[in-house]
């Protein structure tokens, strides 16, 4: 299913079946139920994710590639996670197309799966390049110890929808 930029109609244009299918059927279908959508779901008990890297490295599995088509180039991104630190400070960041886009979280709290380390993020990406694959990914580090993303008593979920 694809979205096509609506044409500007002019007098004496005779819309044929192909025009109506593209401009009406396909565009309506895309807006109704075809907008780009992704979810990375790490279930409760899926196992924790850790790193000792002091430079940002990718969080295994938490990457999504999609091709936005609506002119807005917007994605509403949501993330639910629990991150702790054992020594040093743990940091979590959003990367867009391989480039650091936004740092989300710094935490030097004790390393344990406790609710005080749980967080919920909502972020709006704007002006993404449309009709081109875009990749959103999570990266993390710890400045001098171990960063842990817990999935012991909580699901770690990353979602996005084009709007």
């Amino acid at each position, binding site marked *: 299913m694809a979205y096509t930029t609506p044409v500007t109609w002019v007098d004496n244009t005779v819309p044929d079946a192909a025009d109506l299918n593209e401009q*009406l059927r396909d565009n309506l279908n895309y807006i*109704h139920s075809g907008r780009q*959508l992704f979810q990375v779901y790490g279930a409760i008990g899926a196992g924790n994710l850790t790193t000792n890297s002091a430079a940002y490295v990718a969080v295994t599995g938490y990457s999504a590639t999609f091709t936005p088509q609506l002119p807005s180039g917007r994605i509403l991104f949501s993330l*639910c996670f629990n991150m702790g630190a054992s020594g040093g400070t743990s940091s979590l960041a959003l990367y867009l197309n391989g480039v650091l886009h936004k740092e989300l979280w710094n935490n030097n709290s004790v390393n344990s799966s406790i*609710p005080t380390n749980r967080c919920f993020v909502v972020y709006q990406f704007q002006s993404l390049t449309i009709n081109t694959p875009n990749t959103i990914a999570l990266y993390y580090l710890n400045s001098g110890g171990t960063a842990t993303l817990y999935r012991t*008593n*909580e*699901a770690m979920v990353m*979602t996005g929808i084009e709007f």
Partner: protein
Amino acid sequence: MAWTTPQTWSAGTLVDAAALNTYLSANMAELAAIVIQQQFENLGTSAITTTSTTDVLVGANFTKAIDIKNNRALIIGSGIFHTAGAGTVIVSLYVNSVLVVELTRSNSSAATPTNVQPFLYQITGLTPGTNQFDLYWRITTGTATLDKTNFPGMFNVREN
């Protein structure tokens, strides 16, 4: 107002007023009103508790019938689910009486904002029409509480 699956046009088809009203006017109006959101919350004055070790509805206001126009919905929310010192509270989403996903767990007895459990889940593959969304919970042993005092909890199901 209702959504009608856009038809496939073919050469020689007469595009009359009825067709434009169905496939253009009504569908555009439907898209403009598509975001349906229902809120689950404890409308009472006290916290809600359970000692059930099998899934039960969190409360009377935690079951919603929603008319979904396409096939996707997002559940999003947070609350303080805590124990009385033992056991693990388990919170789950049911759709049409079927367990869809475990949203969160808590083994903490803290009834404070430091014990807020956020959750998030994108549901796909729904059948357009009325779908029943329910928040269920259980505890492995002891008493589970959904706090009301420090943070009432906010949960939404939103079509997207």
